[in-house]
């Protein structure tokens, strides 16, 4: 499902974000990638969605060799992977419903199908009564739910979550993590990047620890060790 083989990423002049990282994530897993700020966690996500080219090694996700992907194929890759971020990345001038529908519109989905899928995913994330609200009219937790709904519209086999609770209070954090667990239960592989110790320890799932760009620990039922 996801493979990183001897992946290194060096930023100019000589900053090593990733150093010979090798890992393998199987379908249906819930994996947390942890580490302190600047250890290369986000670089892993960026490499997986084709936002950053790695300096050496091989990155494979859902059958795509991202290290060899053509620029024109990147949009197609991104339509098959769900991604959520700490800053939600919602379009501010579109309401929540339009934000979610947009992910379907860009790949030419028929309006009839969009009208069926969007209310369905909004119900899954519990936003069915806030469809017409704009991002600045809802809480951070609700914005993150909308971002998750948008990530789910293509029924992705993989969901990448880059610090999804970084901007949320503990109550909203719990809700979002529960939602990710629910999505994982349906069979979606979830990769959670975080430095939230409590979240990782509560999950009791596989934990991959990065430190200064190197993979230092990979535990099946791990804890936050740093």
């Amino acid at each position, binding site marked *: 499902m996801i493979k990183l083989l001897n992946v290194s990423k060096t930023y100019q002049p000589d900053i090593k974000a990733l150093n010979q990282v090798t890992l393998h994530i199987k379908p249906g897993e819930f994996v947390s990638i942890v580490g302190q700020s600047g250890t290369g966690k986000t670089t892993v996500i960026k490499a997986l969605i084709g936002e950053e080219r790695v300096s050496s090694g091989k990155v494979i996700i859902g059958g795509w060799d991202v290290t060899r992907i053509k620029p024109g194929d990147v*949009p197609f890759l991104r339509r098959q992977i769900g991604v959520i971020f700490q800053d939600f*990345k919602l379009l501010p001038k579109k309401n929540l419903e339009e934000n979610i529908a947009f992910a379907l519109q860009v790949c030419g989905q028929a309006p009839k199908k969009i009208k069926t899928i969007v209310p369905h995913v909004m119900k899954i994330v519990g936003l069915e009564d806030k469809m017409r609200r704009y991002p600045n009219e809802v809480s951070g937790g609700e914005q993150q739910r909308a971002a998750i709904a948008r990530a789910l519209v293509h029924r992705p086999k993989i969901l990448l979550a880059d610090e999804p609770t970084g901007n949320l209070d503990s109550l909203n954090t719990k809700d979002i993590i529960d939602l990710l667990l629910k999505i994982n239960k349906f069979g979606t592989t979830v990769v959670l990047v975080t430095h939230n110790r409590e979240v990782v320890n509560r999950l009791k799932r596989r934990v991959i620890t990065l430190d200064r760009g190197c993979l230092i620990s990979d535990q099946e039922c791990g804890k936050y060790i740093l």
Partner: protein
Amino acid sequence: MFLSLIRVIKFSLQDIYRNIWLSLVTVTILILALFSVNMLLTVEVISRAAIDSVKEKIDINLYLKADSREEDILAVKSKVSNFEETREVRYISKEEAMEKFNEKHKGDPEILEALKELNDNPLTPTLVIRAKDIDQYGSLIAKINDIDSPAIESRNFNDHKTILKKIDAITAKVSEAGAIISLIFVLITALLVYNSIRVAIYIHRREIGIMRLVGASNSFIKMPYLVSSAIYTLAGLLAVIAVFFPFLGLLQPYLEAFFIDYNIDIISYFSNNFLKIFGLQFLALAAVNAIASLIAVSKYSKV
């Protein structure tokens, strides 16, 4: 394909409406730019009319002997009329010349009194000759100098040569200044448009990044900006047309008062060349907008 086009137009209209202040600023800049271009064109038309009206007033006077026979005069007139450079030859008799002289100096009793004391009409009959083009006066004068006729009294055209040289110099300077000012205005317009679109896209850079992240293709991201810029251009042009014609209506009476005896109709000029003037402006501005949009989107959409 059709569905994508409809969505692109919808997103573009939504974008214009939801960023209404930015849209208004962009259209205002376009209106100012287009108004400047059209003002420049108006100045060009007026200066051309001014030069033409001066050229209209230039003629050559060929003075004839007072006692010339009519057939000699007609022969000279015929010869001059047959030159390819000649547009018009008019014969003014002694009597007609006297009438004009009296009319011209009716407010100057001293001159009229002096004329009376002569007891005779001292004026000579004249042939008033006009060339087809101001550039042809040189060769026309040369040909007139070659005519051998007992009816001709005087053919001194040196004053005309000086005036013609001066007018030629003024025409060349006006054209040169017009070309330089036009070039400056075109550059300013292009810069204004390019920068306003750059600002618009810079403001949207986060949005463009998000579009890329959810899998929007290059064309799907760029097209709404191109459609928006075409709509801005059209809106700016329509607004300029709506403002410019009433402005010309206000200007016209002043032009008529200034160019007496010369028919200048600036409104007709813009009406008769409507498609050429405003069509070209739309195409040029739309092309500048499109290129600026493409450059700006490409710059800010590398995600």
